[in-house]
């Protein structure tokens, strides 16, 4: 995302240096590029060769000098951008700013919505996996009821009886985490190819990147923890002591 600052036509050299320094000092800016009036005319001629004659017929160069400031990736949605533009607009020598604020606002709200949906779906999936694992363990405990009873009557401790089920739940959760990472990997590889040019201008805004190493670790550990807690909860209901009567 770039912001173009158009300067006054007859701006003194000193002011250009001041503006450039201001742009470079900002945390939001990745790089700046100065486009002189001459350079601006060249670009115009390159892009619109049919209109070269019109420009040549003019006595003066109508193109103002400008600075093109490319923002850092994480700065696009930052709240500081509008303050930065206001500040630059009030700088001596800056005449106009070309910056699509509406789009940035829309992207920001879209990003917030996407995050909210992500958290909501993530929560539902965590709950679903918790319930699925807990039910799998419950069924397993139920199918091995006789064995558990024999173990209890033969002097097996609760921990001895629980360990295989807890291990099973944890492994299920762990495998679930690994599988989801693999599917995500495949999706990230396939999706850009599948969507291709249909994304249009959005392709610059949406970047498909894989999770970091620590995030992957978090997903796998999270899966294992969900599996462990899921099996623990179903076991505590099933393995209560039978000597209540």
């Amino acid at each position, binding site marked *: 995302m770039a912001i173009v600052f158009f300067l006054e036509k007859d701006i003194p050299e000193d002011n250009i240096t001041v503006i450039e320094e201001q742009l470079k000092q900002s945390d939001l800016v990745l790089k700046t590029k100065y486009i002189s009036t001459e350079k601006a005319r060249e670009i115009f001629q390159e892009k619109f060769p049919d209109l070269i004659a019109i420009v040549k017929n003019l006595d003066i160069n109508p193109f103002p000098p400008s600075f093109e400031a490319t923002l850092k990736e994480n700065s696009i949605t930052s709240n500081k951008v509008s303050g930065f533009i206001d500040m630059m607009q009030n700088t001596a020598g800056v005449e106009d700013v070309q910056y699509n604020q509406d789009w940035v606002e829309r992207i920001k709200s879209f990003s917030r919505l996407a995050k909210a949906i992500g958290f909501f779906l993530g929560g539902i999936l965590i709950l679903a996996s918790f319930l699925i694992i807990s039910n799998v363990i419950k069924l397993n405990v139920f199918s091995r009821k006789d064995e558990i009873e024999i173990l209890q009557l033969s002097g097996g*401790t609760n921990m001895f009886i629980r360990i295989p089920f807890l291990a099973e739940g944890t492994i299920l959760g762990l495998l679930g985490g690994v599988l989801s990472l693999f599917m995500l990997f495949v999706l990230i590889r396939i999706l850009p190819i599948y969507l291709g040019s249909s994304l249009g201008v959005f392709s610059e805004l949406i970047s498909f990147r894989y999770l970091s190493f620590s995030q992957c670790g978090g997903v796998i550990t999270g899966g294992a923890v969900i599996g462990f807690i899921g099996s623990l909860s179903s076991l505590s209901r099933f393995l209560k002591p039978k000597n209540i009567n």
Partner: protein
Amino acid sequence: MIELYHIWKQYQRPHWALSDITLKIEKGDFCFVTGPSGSGKTTLLKIIFRESFPTQGQIIIDNRNILKIPNHKIYLLRRKMGIVFQDFRLLFHKKVFDNVAIVLNILGTPRKKVRRRVFNALRMVNLHNKMWEYPSHLSYGEQQRVAIARAVVNNPDIILADEPTGNLDTELAFEIMSLFKEINRQGTTVIICTHDRELIRNFGQKILFLYKGKLLRKESL
């Protein structure tokens, strides 16, 4: 020694499953608990291995009141006991060896020792040659002998058997009872619930008669 003092048990009002049972079973006794169906034989056994709590009364086993053992420590009591059920309660997806070894695995016995002790237990019940078979391939009598091997494999102080010959014909029942007698000869206290008078006549030493939850009489032969 097993001592029961004024044991009362009620599952549902107004019926008492056990009424004021007081008795002592000495270490090394071979004891039959008999009576008609519903007389409280199984309830009595369940109370002794604390699968069930009495409504009133106290139970002392080896000078310890077992009703005061917390739930998470009850495994220590059960490790001193071997239990045999009428329906055998074998695991049919496991081989005979694994069915018996399960008790030793609980105790964390080393694998080599498990093999030796399971083999000895199965040899005692004359099933060592069927160690690697599944219980479903065995006859009823053989299945009950596997259950007995499981009950004795960790050398418990007490064997509790609930109608162990209920599903067996007379010949097999005598065979099973001889096994219990053999186990008893090695010093283990054996308590057997049965309503089979023939068996009691032939093997009875100490007999407890229950009727409608009451201990009618004790006999020592």
